[in-house]
């Protein structure tokens, strides 16, 4: 019972992070594209395509957690994405002029580094954990994930929220 609850919480938290990250990068891919260009020395068009693909996979992984029979595919995608983020973070940490990560589509942000590698390892760990706990309770989980995504969004864009709520800087 406790194990089911923990796996449900992990699933919802991971899905909320992936949903925010994917949707944010789809809406504002510029910063992440610059990071990919700099890290991989890839042309801008290729970098943008990589960011779009990553964002699509993130949203897809988040949604698959709540589709009957597809949770394992969601875990596999999250494992792949986590490994990619870990590698990107390690590459960024290895260079003094690492570009801003463009995480969640944000223009402002810290340079790519160990923080991103740690986040990637967190996703890999969550994917491995969920692969061993295939408990399924989608409707409530989806609503909980949506609520977590809204809270995460509010934290990520807290400056904008303040601006909207107060009507001034």
């Amino acid at each position: 019972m406790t194990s089911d609850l923990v796996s449900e919480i992990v699933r919802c938290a991971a899905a909320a992070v992936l949903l925010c990250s994917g949707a944010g990068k789809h809406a504002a891919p510029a910063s992440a594209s610059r990071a990919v260009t700099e890290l991989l020395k890839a042309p801008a068009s290729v970098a943008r395509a990589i960011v779009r693909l990553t964002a699509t996979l993130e949203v897809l992984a988040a949604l698959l957690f709540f589709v009957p029979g597809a949770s394992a595919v969601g875990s596999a995608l999250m494992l792949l994405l986590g490994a990619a983020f870990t590698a990107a973070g390690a590459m960024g940490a290895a260079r003094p002029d690492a570009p801003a990560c463009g995480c969640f589509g944000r223009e402002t942000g810290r340079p790519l580094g160990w923080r991103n590698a740690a986040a990637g390892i967190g996703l890999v760990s969550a994917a491995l954990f969920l692969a061993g706990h295939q408990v399924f309770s989608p409707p409530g989980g989806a609503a909980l994930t949506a609520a977590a995504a809204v809270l995460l969004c509010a934290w990520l864009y807290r400056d904008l929220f303040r601006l909207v709520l107060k009507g001034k800087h």
Partner: protein
Amino acid sequence: MDYVFGFTALVLAAAMVVLFAMLGEVSARLDSHGSPSGRGFIRLLDQVPAGHAPQDWPEPVKRMAEAERSLALVLSPTCDSCAEVAAQLKTEPKPIPGYDLYIVISTSDPAQGVAFVEDHGIGGMPYFVDERGQWVTREFNLKHSPSALMFHRGRLTSAVVFNDIATLRAAVTTPDKEAKV
């Protein structure tokens, strides 16, 4: 019905993220291109070793060690704000009154650093291409760009990260703000 509710909630949450991501991008573009109020960004970097006097000055910026007041702008060819700062430098021959100005280009590719200087027409100022940012990282623990390092007779007094020359000038040259920077 529960599935419909759950996925509707997810779609609405995703739409909200998209909306705020777009607003964030618009806000960042307004900031970097100059908002109607002309608001720029500047922040004191407190991780730099204030008071530090480098023993090892690269040749192109060696005169900073003797200058009464000097200022090194650290730019990277891969950051958009750096390109905008470089464009502002080209149009302002004496951007920071009272300071000898030097440029440090932090880049993993020296050829790209030289091309950045030439493309923006700022080669008239003394500049040093710092491969992989090794010098600024080793001497000043600096990992941000665009940033400005301020020196008094070769001794680091403070450092800021900024996105606009006018904002930097105001912070450096206005007496009541100088204390903060």
